[in-house]
């Protein structure tokens, strides 16, 4: 009897229990380490209270100094713990990748085994030597697989042991004291100083950061998460880790205060809202609505105290450091960091639509996408819930910036630096294709950045109140030919404000205004079709004009409010680099101000003239058969009222 020895079928190796979600442990430890570091810093900076003297002062000084030393020891221990966890998680990421490769190998080997068994079954005697040779070769490859699997298991075990040892080495206060006194402990003050010195040179920041050891990066993320998380040029993943720790630290601190009965001040409440909104923005990528997109969220900026508490926040969906197509969405008026979750949902909508548009091409196009909601400038806004006169005064001052460009110009510089950072951190040496999308006042900010030399490939201006000072034509924006796109709904009142002469040409407001209307045909951009929104009257300017027509460019079709999704589909084509698919509608031939003029005229006609005419006509109808003279007189009056109106209100802006 002939024997052919076929290797045993290979079972699947269970997946590692440590997943990406396990990173939450690192976030917790870093947040705790940062909080302790802050306390230690405070204690070092404070001795006895100023009004203490003599023995009391000395005792207090000793107590505070001792407290500072103990706290620093705890901080040093947590720092080492965080480093150990970070190294472990990094190792596990590699092990998961190796596991995937091993399981692919296993599948292939099992398939070959099945094929060999099929060939053996019923094979004639003359094929036996060949089949035996094949079986021997397969056994050899199975043995190699078993060896590699064993080696992989040993590595996992070794990684775990190393982490456990590192954590065990700092689980006593004495060990923390030793760690704190370690001469080799990272000098985070020096690192921070160097990072600050590098400033806005994002390439230099990126090179410097990548040159640090993991120990140094970990220490700086703990001591200064606010700096690491908000410096352009630091890789997105590290910014996210630093910012996520800072967000968690702040939420735990502020909610802890509330839980213990403290009433938060208005600015602290705002701080909490900022932190919670950033957390929501990051978390919503895994909510049921979006979970199946399987897209990672990255917190790219978190500065809750910036701009008087309005805050700075940016969240990316998909990693912009590896994406083939990246979009930066810049919101406008009324947006601050407490709105990053809502803006993040619009970025997620754009993410999904972009991937879908690429998949719908013939043939389907592969490529990774990242969309970023960026509120990194001081957008004009006010708190709509505010009722106190002083608050309303502040709000009026803030929102008054809408008619001036100061915030847009400053924001344009910040936006340009953010984009430079994205270029520096992309693993391919620069963003392959980057689109900036500015909405409302954000379009003025984006246009200002473009005119100043922002390094973007495509620019989209949505519902724009103006393309910023000095920009008279698309060529002034410095983008490649055919890469500036404009979407403006006819019934979007913000898009009626553009024009180089202000709303009232030749009058007091010529120094105000936000520049040329980019939707004009003569401006030279590519205008794309959008849902024009619904007409509105009176107070509908807010509910329909602003809240629906001005804010629906990123929406799915919405039959209850009568909107389609034309803008979203077109933007997805632009973001994916398929701008040839964008149809140019030609743009406006009527001045933007004329839309406003027509609307106000229509309102006056509707609310003032028409009631007068209606009253006249009621009178006339009541006397029609009785007093012909009166009737004729009333008819004359109606005609007179209409003529007077036509005379007062010409068809076009004078």
């Amino acid at each position, binding site marked *: 009897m002939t024997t052919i020895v076929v290797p045993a079928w290979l079972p699947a190796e269970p997946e590692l229990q440590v997943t990406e979600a396990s990173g939450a442990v690192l976030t917790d430890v870093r947040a705790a380490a940062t909080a302790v570091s802050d306390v230690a810093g405070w204690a070092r900076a404070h001795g006895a209270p100023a009004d203490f003297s003599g023995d009391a002062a000395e005792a207090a000084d000793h107590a505070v100094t001792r407290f500072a030393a103990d706290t620093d020891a705890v901080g040093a221990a947590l720092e080492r713990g965080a480093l150990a966890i970070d190294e472990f998680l990094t190792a596990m990421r590699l092990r998961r990748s190796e596991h995937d490769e091993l399981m692919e190998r296993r599948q292939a080997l099992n398939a070959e085994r099945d094929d060999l068994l099929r060939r053996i079954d019923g094979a004639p005697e003359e094929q036996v030597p060949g089949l035996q040779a094949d079986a021997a070769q397969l056994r050899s490859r199975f043995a190699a697989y078993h060896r590699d699997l064993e080696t992989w298991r040993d590595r996992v075990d070794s990684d775990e042991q190393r982490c456990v040892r590192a954590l065990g080495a700092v689980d006593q206060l004495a060990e923390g004291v030793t760690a704190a006194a370690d001469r080799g402990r990272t000098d985070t003050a020096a690192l921070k100083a160097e990072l600050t010195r590098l400033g806005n040179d994002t390439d230099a920041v990126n090179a410097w950061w990548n040159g640090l050891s993991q120990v140094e990066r970990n220490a700086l993320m703990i001591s200064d998460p606010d700096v690491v998380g908000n410096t352009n040029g630091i890789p997105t993943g590290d910014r996210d880790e630093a910012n996520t720790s800072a967000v968690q630290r702040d939420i735990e601190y502020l909610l802890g205060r509330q839980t213990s009965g403290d009433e938060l001040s208005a600015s602290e409440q705002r701080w909490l809202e900022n932190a919670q909104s950033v957390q929501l923005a990051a978390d919503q990528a895994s909510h049921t609505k979006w979970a199946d997109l399987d897209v990672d969220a990255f917190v790219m900026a978190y500065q809750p105290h910036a701009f008087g508490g309005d805050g700075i926040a940016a969240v990316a969906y998909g990693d912009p450091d590896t994406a083939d197509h990246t979009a930066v969405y810049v919101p406008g008026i009324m947006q601050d960091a407490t709105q990053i979750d809502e803006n993040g949902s619009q970025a997620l909508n754009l993410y999904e639509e972009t991937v879908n548009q690429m998949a719908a091409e013939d043939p389907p196009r592969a490529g990774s996408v990242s969309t970023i909601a960026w509120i990194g400038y001081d957008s004009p806004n006010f708190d709509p819930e505010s009722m106190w006169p002083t608050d309303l005064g502040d709000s009026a001052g803030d929102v008054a910036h809408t008619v001036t460009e100061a915030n847009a110009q400053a924001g344009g510089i910040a936006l340009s630096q953010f984009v430079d950072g994205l270029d520096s951190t992309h693993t391919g040496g620069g963003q392959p294709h980057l689109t900036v999308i500015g909405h409302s006042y954000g379009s003025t900010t984006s246009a200002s950045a473009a005119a100043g030399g922002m390094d973007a490939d495509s620019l989209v201006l949505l519902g724009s109140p103006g393309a910023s000072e000095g920009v008279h034509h698309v060529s002034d924006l410095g983008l490649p030919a055919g890469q500036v796109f404009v979407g403006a709904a006819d019934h979007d009142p913000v898009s009626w404000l553009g024009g180089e002469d202000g709303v009232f040409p030749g009058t007091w407001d010529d120094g105000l205004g936000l520049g040329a209307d980019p939707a004009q045909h003569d401006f030279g951009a590519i205008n794309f079709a959008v849902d024009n929104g619904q007409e509105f009257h009176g107070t509908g300017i*807010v509910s329909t004009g602003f809240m629906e027509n001005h804010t629906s460019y990123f929406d799915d079709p919405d039959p209850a409010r009568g909107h389609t999704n034309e803008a979203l589909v077109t933007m997805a084509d632009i973001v994916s680099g398929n701008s040839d698919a964008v149809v140019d509608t030609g743009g406006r031939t009527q001045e933007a101000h004329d839309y406003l003029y027509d609307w106000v005229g229509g309102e006056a006609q509707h609310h003032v003239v028409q009631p007068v005419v209606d009253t006249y006509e009621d009178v006339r109808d009541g006397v029609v058969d009785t007093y012909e003279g009166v009737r004729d007189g009333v008819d004359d009056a109606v005609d007179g009222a209409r003529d007077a109106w036509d005379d007062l209100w010409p068809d076009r802006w004078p």
Partner: protein
Amino acid sequence: MARVTAMRSTLAVLALVVLVAGVTACSTGSDEMPPQDREKQAVDVVTEAVPLVEEALRSTRAEVGGGWSSCPGGVGHVYSGGGTISAPEGDASAQLAAVRAALTEAGFEEGTVVDGHVSVSRDEVSLDVAPSAARGPGAWAVSFEGPCKRYGGDDEHYVQQQNLQGEDALVP
């Protein structure tokens, strides 16, 4: 020239009045019904419509969640959400037609027909269904949204707390 100046002044005053009136109405107005009722409207639409879509697509899995969030511009709150329906891959046009028929026959109103979508509404709640390759083969994206409304007092506290507490699982 005098007429032009007068006209501009008129325009300025009218525009100001309308804007102030609009903002005032916005900042003092509120929903005519409590947020729990708004929420129920949306939940009713989702829990009635999604099973119809599942049946039309012969779905193998459906998950839809919803929750309160702030509206664009920070004025008001909205109950909205969405999820994924997984179904065997097929002729997308025929599947869309089947979904459309199922929903309109059940009395949902269809708005403007948008390529690749079925969008219906009821009680101010919009619901959109569309195939989504971004979610994987055979996946359909579902999204829904109620109206943006402003709430005060306990109602405002309710929607803000719900926003922070995360989403509700509506289907299954």
